[in-house]
Every structure is written in C-alpha cells, then in structure tokens.
C-alpha cells in the first residue's frame, strides 16, 4: 500500500510530502525523505521496547501503568519531562496529569530553544510562514545553525532551491551563513561570515547601532551584511542553537529579534528559529494555551507558575528537587549533562517510549508506546507554527502516548 503526503515525524521542517510504501504492515520503501527520516521510518521497529518493564522484569501493560501511577501519586514533587517528540493531544494530557499531581512539567525546549522563548517574551518576534519565505525571500541568512546536517531538506523545500511564486530558484536568492565554523551549510552559501564563539550579542548589537546611524564603522563583513539586509526586498534570518546555547543565550536571541524589528524600518524582514524535534513548537503552543506558559511550569500550588532556572528540568534534576519522574518521548540520559540526569537513577523514573533508550536503561518503569506519526496519528506544529496532521501508517497493538496518559489520569482521579 502506498501512503502519500505523509508528514515526517523527525525534525521541525515537518516535511509533508513523504511517500511511504507498506507491505503486510511493514514499511518497505520511503520516498522524498532525507537520510535521517528514512532511517526513522525504516528502523522504527528496530530496538523496540518489547514489553512493559518494572524493575527490569516483564509485566503486563496494566501493571506497569498501575505502578507508574502509584509512584507519581505518592511523590511529593514529581517531574514530567519530554513531550516534543509526540503529538499535541498527548501533550495536553501530560499537562492535565501534571496539574492533578501538583507536578513540575517541562518540555525539551528548555535545553534547545528555551532561550528563544525567553527572548521572544522580551522583544516580540516578526514572524512569517515558510511558504512566504519560499515565495518571496531574496535574502536568506542562516545564523548559528547547520541545516545541511540537522534540517536536511530545509534548503530544498523552503528557502534556497524551491520554485516559489516570485523567486524561481537558487540564482534569485542570496544566501548567507553566519557561524563559528565552516559547516556543510556554509558551502552552499553565497557569503560565509565567520565569527568568534560567544560574540553574537556583541556583533548583533554593533550591527544595530550601525543600522540606526549611531556608529560609523563596523568590521567589513558585518557592514556588508547590514547593507545586504537593508537593501533586500524580503529578508529572513533562520537561527539555531549557535545563538541559544552559547554565552549570552536569550540575550543573543533578544538582540537578533530586535535587529529584525529595526530592519523593518527599511524593508520587510522576518526571523524564524530552526526548531529541532518535530513537535517542539507544538509542545510550546500546547503548554502556552493550557497553562499560559510555554515551558518550565510548576503546579505545586494548584495553579500554574513558570520560572525557567527554577522549574526547568536540568535545574530540578541538578538540585535533586524531584522525587519521581515521568519521561515522555525523550531521552534525558543521552541529552542532559551527566551531572543533571544522574538524579534520575536515584528516584523512581518512569519512561514512555517506543524504543529502548539510555533513560529506559536506568528507569524503574518502562512503558512501550506507539510511535507518533507512524503508528499513531495526531497534530504537530512545524517550526513556523503551522499545524499539520500526522498519519498512522502502520497498525500496532501498542497504545498511543495519549491513551496511556488518559489511563493514568483516570487512575489518579479514582
């Protein structure tokens, strides 16, 4: 059977033109996908969590969910973390569960584009869709990101190469890459601007001062870049973890957002974060419309409070403040500093994941679930905030994240 227009559940590009062939409920071929997407579809059944586990012993699904709910209900300060690699309905249930438990809930943005959210709360953000970029942008700037390795089809589908309404191809667009090293993405750029690590805030602030006529001189490369920005017809900055993870963090993003705002005095300019996990944008949106805050939320007082640094997962773990954890569609033992995740081995940790992960290796309870976007449907948000529908293309007896969380909610309420 051939499934057309499948949405790829891997990165924030959320490509919606994947063609997947299944035979006897097995994926046999994947077209239009990049290497990572192909690997995700074709290997989705490899290294699966075969059965529910409690203390390393196989148990029934019901027993595992019972045990998980007991652990969470009896904890004083449970942590719920993950969310960005599952669909929005599951995210909504996870937030509901956090509210019932008086838990802390955080999503993976806190270790990727959390600083982007903080910067946006401060400065606002001039946004547009990827469709507008494809149709109109004549200046495309990738700042501190490497789509050639991380968002592989971004160039082809949305920015550099596609045939848009008013921009027909590569030669009608100028591409600039700003980074601390000459990445694979820098190779396709018209201009590569190399910066020193940790100098983004300084560079962007200088550019803003020059743009506003408060400064006459600027290093050549930066001056040329500002001139390009001022004189283009429709410009866009795509930025990545080069800004959010290095010195300055949210202040770097804040400066970039303000630079784009300033540029709109001269021309049309927008800015979009290159979101990593396919539904991390959805996790932020869902948390924001349910709790009022996009990440790092605590329900201990019965109502939501948000404070990154206090209720963010890395901090809660590093300070050993939680006494139980529920990890949904994420692998903090692989992705967090060891100094932080090791607390997960000290407390009862519950993991909901389709696959064996590093965190399932140290978990007390492991619950195998359907892979969202392959074995379960749902909604996900693309990096520009456009919601798309994930498809179910393979049947499975495993419950979806949403189904498991619904059961936990019923049990906590009972």
């Amino acid at each position: 059977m051939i499934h057309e227009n499948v949405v790829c559940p891997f990165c924030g590009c959320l490509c919606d033109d994947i063609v997947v062939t299944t035979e006897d409920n097995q994926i046999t071929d994947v077209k239009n996908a990049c290497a990572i997407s192909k690997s995700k579809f074709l290997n989705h059944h490899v290294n699966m969590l075969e059965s529910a586990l409690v203390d390393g012993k196989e148990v029934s699904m019901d027993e595992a969910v019972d045990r998980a709910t007991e652990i969470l209900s009896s904890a004083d300060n449970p942590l719920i973390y993950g969310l960005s690699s599952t669909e929005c309905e599951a995210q909504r249930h996870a937030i509901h569960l956090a509210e019932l438990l008086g838990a802390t809930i955080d999503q993976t943005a806190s270790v990727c584009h959390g600083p982007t959210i903080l910067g946006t709360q401060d400065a606002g953000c001039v946004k547009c869709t990827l469709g507008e970029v494809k149709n109109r942008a004549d200046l495309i700037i990738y700042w501190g990101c490497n789509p050639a390795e991380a968002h592989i089809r971004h160039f082809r589908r949305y920015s550099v190469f596609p045939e848009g309404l008013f921009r027909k191809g590569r030669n009608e667009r100028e591409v600039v890459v700003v980074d601390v090293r000459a990445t694979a993405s820098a190779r396709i750029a018209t201009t590569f601007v190399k910066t020193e690590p940790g100098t983004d805030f300084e560079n962007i602030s200088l550019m803003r001062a020059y743009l506003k006529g408060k400064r006459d001189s600027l290093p050549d490369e930066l001056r040329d870049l500002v001139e390009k920005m001022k004189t283009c017809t429709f410009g866009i900055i795509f930025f990545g973890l080069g800004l959010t993870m290095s010195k300055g963090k949210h202040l770097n993003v804040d400066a970039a957002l303000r630079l784009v705002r300033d540029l709109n005095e001269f021309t049309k300019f927008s800015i979009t974060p290159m979101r990593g996990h396919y539904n991390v944008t959805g996790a932020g949106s869902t948390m924001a419309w349910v709790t009022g805050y996009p990440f790092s939320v605590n329900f201990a007082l019965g109502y939501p409070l948000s404070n990154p640094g206090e209720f963010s997962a890395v901090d809660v773990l590093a300070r050993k403040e939680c006494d139980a954890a529920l990890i949904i569609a994420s692998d903090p033992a692989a992705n967090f500093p060891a100094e932080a995740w090791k607390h997960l081995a000290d407390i009862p940790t519950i993991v909901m994941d389709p696959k064996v992960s590093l965190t399932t290796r140290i978990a007390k309870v492991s619950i195998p679930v359907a892979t969202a976007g392959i074995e379960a449907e749902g909604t996900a948000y693309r990096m520009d905030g456009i919601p798309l529908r994930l498809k179910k293309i393979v049947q499975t007896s495993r419950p979806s994240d949403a189904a498991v969380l619904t059961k936990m909610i019923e049990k906590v309420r009972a």
Partner: protein
Amino acid sequence: MKIVLLSGRTTKQGVAAEIGKTSDDYLQNVAVIQLNPALMDQMGVKDGDRIEVKTLHGSAVVMCHKSDIEENMGFIPYGPWANLLIGSETQGTGMPDSKGTEAEIEKTDKNVESVDELLTRIVEGRK
C-alpha cells in the same frame, strides 16, 4: 592542548540514533571529536586515534576525526559523551552551556566507553 569545545547535530548521529543508541553505529558516529589536521599533527595523532577530553565537569574518551574546523576548536556531536563534559549550571535559563566550554585534550590508550559502561560509571559513581 587547550581547545574550545563545540557540540551539535550531525546527519550520521541522527541516522544512527534512529537505529538505536546502544548500536555500534551510534558509538562510531557520536563518540568522536572532530579536530583540525594541523592540531592533530602537533599532538601526533591520526584519524581514529583515541583522545581523552577533560573539562571542569568531567572527562570522556572519544575517537578523533579530521575536519576543517579551526585549530583551537573541537566538535563532538550531541550525545552522552558530549554530555559528560558540560555542566548543569543554567544561569536561570534552564539551558546548560552546551557550546563553547573550554577543554583539555590529549592522546590516550584508554578505551572509548560504550553507552552501557558510561551509564554504569555515572550511576555507580553518584553514590
């Protein structure tokens, strides 16, 4: 030798993670550090040799690969090995300093730890 440590995504890391993080592919593609060839010559190491990387926060043994990165930098893909080297201080943002940590590197005969060895060391070591 002192370097500034960078970390990020690579296609190979993404592909291998989907096969499984306990797979050999993952180890081969993620437990690596990309260094400038001139720096490797100075250190007397070649492609595939093992390097011990130390920071204030911990240490990791990884294989070195040639790359066109600057001489004063090293790049380790996101993953458990890179995460041995960064701290958990977030300065009130939730985000640890994952890029731009200072590190000391030297040639070593120690083995690259497998994912399981690494987990065991951290879990045992915390007591």
